[in-house]
């Protein structure tokens, strides 16, 4: 026994250590990554971000170098502060304050002393930099905007936050990432691939040379260049027209679904979000809670579409077979239903059939047609769901899947909604009558309405709107969903009478004065009531001016939707703007300079100030005073 004690425990400990080593080295692999981080530093080489061009190859966004003056406090040797301050154009107290701050952050790690010097400031400083030990200049790449417009769809770049880093391990603190617009949606293509250098470090964080003699190091790959479908001339013109107005313009090419212009007003100069003043400017834009320049009204703004929606109701009624193009309906100042309720209309001749109904935008006509559609089915629930299904085939009530990161679904009511509002399920088609003229529960974004217009222009199909034309000049890299045709539930033959009606809007209808000479246009005005809440009271504001149009009538080149907030009737602002935009795109020049001057010189700022005044205010050119409680159930006034 006594002979065996030491022998046994020597063996046992030998086996125990073997087991422990097996666990540490083979079974538990958590140490491998730890030792990598410990001893190897990755130094990144940032590639140039891809350039952005418009549809004709004009450069919109490129890069500019920017130079930060950095300091590593521990390495600073005594220096001539007076001369240094002179070079940096800052006073000594400020320099000392920033040095102290850098020292508090870390004596070993670099801190920024002066961010984003311009090229000329840098050139001056570069010569003398060697005199100041511990200071150096770090080159970064910033966006250089060649245009002063288009900020809403271009987006901007900003430093990544912790959430981005968690989501995608590619990013590290301090990296730049696209935010909003094309910069965000095409981030992966634009950012390129970082180059990595592996540097071996010792325990004191000193560099001791390249890891594995640099065999793992990679070179940076430049970001891919993008061509957008945007026509920069048209975009610029649209933004000029929308100056001092709020709302948006969407112009699409119907045959491809390409976005020609996306004007959100008010907009801002994209250059504001670059450079030393970036955070100040961003705060200013962000805190502007009145005009909300960062809110993309084109993609996110939900509006009642108003009368342009009537074209869809006409198409659905034809498809459902509840009306033919010859049947006429009388209109005596509106449509009467229920116990003395009037669904108002404006003055025009009576009775009207479909083409004229569209041209004159008769509310009574569409009330009749809409009710017939719903009442075709045994219950209003089934009727409204059938109606909704047709509308959804036009891209309504959904995020459409376009290649921009923003958007709203809009709203098309179904039976579910009304069943919830009327819990006993005893509601009838007349309860939803506002839907017939694009008011009530119906909501669309300008983008959706433009897409509807494109689908009508195409006589029943559309491509999902998209902003990407090619990546690195290669159109084959565009996702397949933007090259897939969507067919609506309406047969092509039913489009002709509706398009005829839209053409006659320009001939003698609600936009008779806005015809472009020499081009046959189709359009539809819209004037939608809208409300706001002031001190808890629901108040009506001046109607939104809405217009959709496409041109020419055959082989349409452009489909356009214009929303001008509180612009009153449809042809007043939106109609004029749509007409000018179409002319600009098709002819390349404007012949009707008087029309253009009218739009450029008219501002709606006064209108926008009214609800902020705190007093009752006149709306719709003084025809109404807002501020009294509205009995909206008694009379629903439809608009053209």
């Amino acid at each position, binding site marked *: 026994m*006594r*002979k065996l*004690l*030491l*022998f046994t*425990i*020597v*063996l046992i*400990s*030998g086996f*125990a*250590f*073997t087991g*422990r*080593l*097996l666990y*540490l*080295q*083979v079974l*538990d*692999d*958590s*140490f*491998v990554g*730890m*030792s*990598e981080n*410990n*001893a*190897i530093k990755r130094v990144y080489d940032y590639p140039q971000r891809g350039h952005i061009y418009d549809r004709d190859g004009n450069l919109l966004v490129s890069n500019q170098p920017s130079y930060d003056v950095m300091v590593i406090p521990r390495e600073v040797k005594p220096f001539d502060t007076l001369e240094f301050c002179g070079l940096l154009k800052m006073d000594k107290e400020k320099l000392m304050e920033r040095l102290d701050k850098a020292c508090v952050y870390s004596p070993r790690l670099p801190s920024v002393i002066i961010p984003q010097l311009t090229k000329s400031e840098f050139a001056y400083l570069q010569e003398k930099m060697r005199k100041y030990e511990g200071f150096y200049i770090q080159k970064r790449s910033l966006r250089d905007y060649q245009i002063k417009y288009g900020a809403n769809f271009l987006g901007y770049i900003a430093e990544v936050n912790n959430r981005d880093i968690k989501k995608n391990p590619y990013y590290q603190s301090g990296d730049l990432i696209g935010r909003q617009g094309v910069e965000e949606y095409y981030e992966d293509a634009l950012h390129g691939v970082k180059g990595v250098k592996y540097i*071996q*470090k*010792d*325990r*004191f964080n000193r560099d*001791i*040379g390249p*890891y594995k003699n640099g065999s793992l190091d990679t070179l940076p790959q430049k970001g891919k260049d993008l061509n957008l479908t945007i026509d920069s001339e048209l975009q610029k013109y649209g933004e000029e027209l929308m100056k001092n107005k709020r709302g948006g313009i969407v112009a699409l090419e119907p045959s491809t679904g390409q976005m020609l212009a996306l004007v959100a007003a008010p907009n801002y100069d994209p250059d504001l979000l670059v450079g030393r003043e970036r955070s100040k400017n961003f705060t200013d834009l962000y805190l502007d809670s009145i005009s909300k320049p960062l809110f993309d009204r084109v993609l996110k703004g939900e509006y009642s579409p108003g009368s342009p929606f009537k074209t869809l109701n006409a198409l659905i009624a034809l498809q459902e077979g509840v009306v033919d193009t010859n049947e006429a309906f009388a209109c005596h100042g509106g449509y009467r239903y229920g116990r003395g309720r009037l669904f108002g209309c404006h003055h025009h001749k009576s009775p009207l059939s479909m083409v004229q109904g569209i041209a004159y935008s008769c509310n009574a006509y569409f009330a009749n047609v809409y009710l017939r559609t719903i009442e075709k089915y045994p219950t209003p629930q089934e009727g409204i769901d059938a109606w909704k299904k047709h509308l959804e085939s036009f891209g309504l009530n959904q995020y459409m899947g376009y290649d921009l990161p923003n958007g709203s679904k809009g709203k098309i009511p179904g039976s579910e909604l009304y069943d919830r509002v009327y819990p006993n399920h005893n509601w009838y088609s007349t309860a939803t009558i506002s839907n017939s003229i694009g008011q009530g529960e119906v909501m669309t974004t300008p983008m959706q309405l433009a897409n509807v217009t494109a689908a009508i222009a195409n006589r029943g199909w559309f491509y999902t709107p998209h902003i990407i034309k090619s990546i690195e000049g290669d159109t084959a890299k565009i996702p397949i969903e933007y090259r897939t045709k969507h067919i609506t539930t309406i047969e092509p033959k039913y489009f002709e009478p509706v398009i005829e009606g839209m053409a006659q809007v320009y001939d003698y209808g609600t936009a008779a004065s806005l015809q472009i000479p020499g081009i046959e246009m189709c359009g539809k005005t819209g004037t939608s009531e809208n409300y706001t809440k002031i001190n808890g009271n629901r108040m009506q504001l001046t109607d939104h001016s809405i217009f959709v149009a496409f041109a020419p009538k055959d082989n349409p080149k452009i489909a356009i939707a214009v929303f001008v907030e509180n612009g009153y009737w449809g042809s007043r602002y939106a109609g004029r703007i749509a007409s000018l935009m179409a002319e600009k795109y098709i002819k390349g020049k404007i012949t009707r300079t008087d029309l253009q001057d009218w739009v450029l010189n008219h501002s709606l700022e006064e209108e926008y100030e009214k609800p902020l005044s705190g007093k009752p205010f006149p709306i719709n050119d003084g025809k109404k005073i807002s501020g009294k409680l509205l009995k909206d159930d008694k009379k629903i006034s439809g608009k053209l």
Partner: protein
Amino acid sequence: MTKRSAGNFDWLLIILFLALVSIGWINIYSASLDPEVVSGSFDFANLYTKQFVWIVLSFVLIVFILFLDAKFFERFASVIYICSLLSLLGLYVFGKEISGATSWYDLGGFSIQPSEFAKAATALALAKYLSDIQTDVASFQHQLRAFLIIALPAIFIIPQPDPGSAIVYAAFFFPLYREGLSGIYLIIGMSIIALFVATLAVGPLYVCGGIVLITIGLFLLKRKKRASASMYFILPIVCMGFVFSVNYIFQNVFEQRHRDRFNVVLGKEVDAKAIGYNTQQSEIAIGSGGWTGRGFLKGTQTTGNFVPEQHTDYIFSTVGEEWGFLGSTFVVFLFVALMIRIIFLAEKQKNQFSRIYGYSVAGILFIHFLINIGMVTGIFPTVGIPLPFFSYGGSGLWGFTILLFIFVRLDGNRLNEW
């Protein structure tokens, strides 16, 4: 003078020694190579160059030891022991302080650490005392004297302070036990350690509960219930008393750094930068080795100097990182083989002196091996003692070389005894 031939020496021991020393030097080379200096230069400023010189000089020592008469060691054991004690005491007067411990003599250019040699001296003295025909290990008085021989150098070493080197003297339990020391000492010692660690790990109440349960269990299993009342009554109470004093001992006798080391191993504190830094970095180094390691001079932990004291106490982490599981288990195998060979040879000694000395050598190597690799792989708390033949340091290398080769010399005389 007996006839001496090379064939008398145990060549397996010598081969194992040479293997350990050369593998050790390769790892010291890797751990101490300054990456900024061109590799391979033999500047005397480099640690690996110094170690190489120590190794060469140790061969001179070996030759010297092997040429001495085997009887010389038995005859002069007491003298050597007393010289060794004096050298330890002399440190309090002439000692030179290196990293907080006054354990070195400065001999102009290089330093000598007498505690490394005291182990061999104590082994000789104990072997001499126990092998004396008049000594009876069973007698308490003689046990006390043996303990005194072992304890004196340890007592001199602790206040240097170098408690790690003092712990090594626990190794002399093995020869004592082999020669007939009662097993009760082993049980008592083990029980104290087990109770101490268990109390720190799970708290005194659980441990007391465990003691009560075990006592009741033993009581029920045993047939003669009246046989030993003390066993079932006094002993548990003593144990529980000890358990409740553990916290006091831990808080008041131990220093904060010792408490921290215990807490790190017991998983009560995870603090990578401070207390457990060495162990943490060493585990990372070993863990990143994988099956076959990163290769010679390729370990990032090793070449980046992440493991403090890597060339000395933490040299095994270099083995783990650069040579992987295969390399490190090979080293473990070499040590186990060396110790078992020594035990095997010790058992074959006709001479009691040689046998006790052999057991002492195996015990000392074992304690170093156990505590050092246990510490480096994160099983034991940090105790600063070197890995024999591996760790950098002339005194350590010489100390172990002398320790081992005295046994080789004694063993070589075995056949001539008749």
